[in-house]
């Protein structure tokens, strides 16, 4: 019951008029970000990060995490009304959401999507409330080898659980690490790979990379299609909401299953996108009405939305408890914590109790606020999508440029942003996943430090990674995941080839 007491303490910290105001501002901005093409959770938070530098860390993280919840909610609006997934994890929502909208049941679909998002997030926050302190306590005993093995596991699981060519996942990751190595070496103080440019001494900031890769890259991709929106009108009135809420409890098994899938995929860096597809696939297989999935079945909206939100929320658990983010957006939030002088990881729970529990309390409140905001403002956001792309696109590029500049007040960063934008466009087209690159860029220095410290302890003997049962099993698991594509191929050779689920085949490389 320790957790409950701390949580109540957290509510006291968060419940100030300023924080509640910021919460609503954050949610509204977040939904806006989620709705607009080219702005997503990760780069939206990255762009707005500098605005919070003058706030207290608690207020800042409340606003930033609310932007994140808002973006998670917002993705569903475009999927259902326009058949355009605003975020990769809402691709699965389009399968049944858009047909529902075509049948004139957009209000119902949106209510179901928002409510199940809320449920997924709530289950995940409950899990964080009780699990995070335990994980943090456990991790207090970690030394350098243990931490490096967890980093190894994080990156190897990208290869093991990712979709597409394992070489591309590896390349994206290694490129991130290589970029992270540029600049001052944290241990010896030597300059690395700056090629004599003093501007490069600072290294590549991952916030710039996030803004370029996800923002500019996404705009270029959307531009290719020449975006012609054909949206369905949506009106949500209290009656529709009430009617839908009466139906939803019927799908409690799906909700629960999807939440669990989401939580699992969120803690391991599988991410929200695979979680939403996996839970859609499972629901399709297990539901009595599974055959009608894809034609506008409410359950087909509930499953992916619940899982995506549960995953998006659980991604914060390893970020808080271990300092290892489970998703690019969690990585950006982690970058924020570092800027405010808070070192995420097990010690955070001991040294910054108020902050941690304030954040966890704000997750509860933020999701309630989010549900209220999205249910009442859908028509407004749907009308924003009717603004022609030739106005939206330059404005978003301007916002990205401003965001990139404010990170370090450096002009060069805007050029880097354009460069990353081009990389993001090409990588997206060729199915390179971007998340491993961003996480490698964030964690590069820390992973390297723990590796070198571990090597110092053992005097260069790699076997330290198997020196005790804990570190040994994590390292072994990491290698199993790293070679999973090969293992899976061997298993497939021994068994009969099975058919690929057509739904899962549509999952984007994220």
């Amino acid at each position: 019951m320790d957790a409950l007491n701390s949580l109540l303490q957290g509510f006291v910290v968060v419940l100030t008029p300023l924080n509640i105001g910021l919460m609503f501002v954050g949610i509204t901005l977040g939904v806006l970000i989620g709705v607009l093409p080219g702005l997503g959770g990760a780069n939206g938070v990255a762009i707005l990060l500098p605005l919070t530098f003058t706030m207290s860390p608690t207020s800042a993280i409340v606003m930033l995490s609310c932007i994140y919840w808002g973006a998670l909610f917002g993705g569903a609006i475009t999927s259902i009304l326009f058949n355009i997934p605003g975020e990769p994890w809402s691709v699965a929502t389009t399968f049944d959401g858009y047909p529902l909208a075509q049948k004139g049941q957009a209000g119902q679909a949106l209510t179901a999507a928002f409510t199940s998002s809320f449920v997924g997030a709530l289950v995940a926050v409950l899990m964080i409330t009780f699990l995070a302190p335990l994980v943090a306590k456990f991790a207090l005993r970690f030394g350098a080898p243990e931490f490096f093995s967890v980093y190894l596991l994080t990156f190897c699981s990208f290869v093991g659980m990712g979709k597409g060519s394992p070489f591309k996942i590896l390349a994206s990751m290694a490129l991130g690490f290589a970029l992270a190595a540029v600049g001052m070496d944290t241990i010896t103080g030597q300059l690395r790979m700056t090629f004599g440019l003093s501007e490069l001494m600072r290294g590549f900031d991952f916030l710039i990379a996030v803004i370029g890769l996800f923002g500019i890259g996404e705009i270029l991709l959307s531009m290719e299609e020449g975006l012609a929106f054909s949206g369905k009108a949506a009106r949500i009135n209290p009656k529709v909401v009430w009617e839908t809420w009466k139906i939803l409890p019927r799908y409690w098994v799906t909700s629960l299953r999807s939440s669990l899938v989401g939580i699992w995929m969120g803690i391991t860096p599988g991410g929200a996108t695979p979680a939403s597809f996996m839970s859609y696939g499972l629901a399709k297989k297990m539901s009595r009405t599974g055959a009608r999935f894809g034609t506008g079945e409410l359950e087909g909206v509930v499953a992916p939305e619940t899982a995506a939100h549960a995953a998006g929320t659980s991604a914060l658990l390893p970020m808080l408890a271990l300092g290892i983010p489970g998703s690019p957006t969690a990585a950006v939030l982690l970058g924020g914590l570092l800027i405010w002088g808070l070192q995420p990881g097990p010690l955070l729970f001991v040294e910054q109790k108020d902050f941690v529990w304030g954040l966890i309390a704000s997750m509860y409140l933020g999701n309630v606020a989010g549900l209220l905001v999205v249910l009442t403002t859908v028509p407004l956001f749907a009308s924003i999508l009717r603004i022609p792309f030739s106005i939206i696109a330059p404005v978003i590029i301007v916002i990205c440029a401003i965001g990139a500049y404010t990170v370090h007040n450096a002009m060069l960063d805007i050029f880097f942003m354009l460069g990353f934008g081009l990389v993001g466009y090409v990588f997206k087209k060729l199915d390179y996943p971007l998340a491993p690159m961003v996480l490698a860029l964030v964690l590069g220095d820390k992973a390297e430090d723990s590796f070198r410290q571990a090597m110092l302890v053992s005097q260069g003997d790699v076997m330290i990674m198997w020196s005790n049962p804990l570190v040994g099993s994590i390292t072994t698991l990491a290698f199993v995941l790293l070679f999973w594509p090969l293992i899976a191929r061997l298993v497939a050779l021994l068994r009969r080839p099975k058919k690929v689920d057509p739904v899962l085949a549509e999952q984007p490389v994220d």
Partner: protein
Amino acid sequence: MSDAADAPAGDDAGEALVRNSSIDAVVSAVLFAVGVVVVFQARALGSGWQNDGPGPGYFPFYIGLILCIAGVGIFWQAVFSARRNRGAFVDREQLGRVLSVFVPAILYVVAIVFVGIYVASAVYIAAFMVVLGKYPVWKSVLIGVAVNALFFAMFEVWFKVPLYKGSLAPLSFLGY
């Protein structure tokens, strides 16, 4: 989606300028080259064991190596694999659309260096709307100026985060 390569995708796209597999090969070669650069830089920094522990190039050396291996793997998959994605990377029209956004964006960023973020952004938004959106000039200028006036109020006045004013500082008369 690489699994889309299973289907005979994109062979009907006659206008395709380049195929995915060709770009794949080029990108993999670039990645390999980056990997080689990293390996050599790491060697120069000291990738071995120095008297006080692992050198500054110890970790990057292996990263460069992984990058090279991945580059070779992708190249192999792009050129020799039966399942390579021969779909169109980009056709003429798409390339035109993408360049019509990207080239002005480069010009915009160059303009920021001289006239600062606000002026460059206003001109960029207005020009984008006139040229690509076919909007009347007065409307475009109005939106361009209004959006940047809002940004100016937000950053300079409310949040007190000064943005870049450019080497010519055309807005210096405002006193911010």
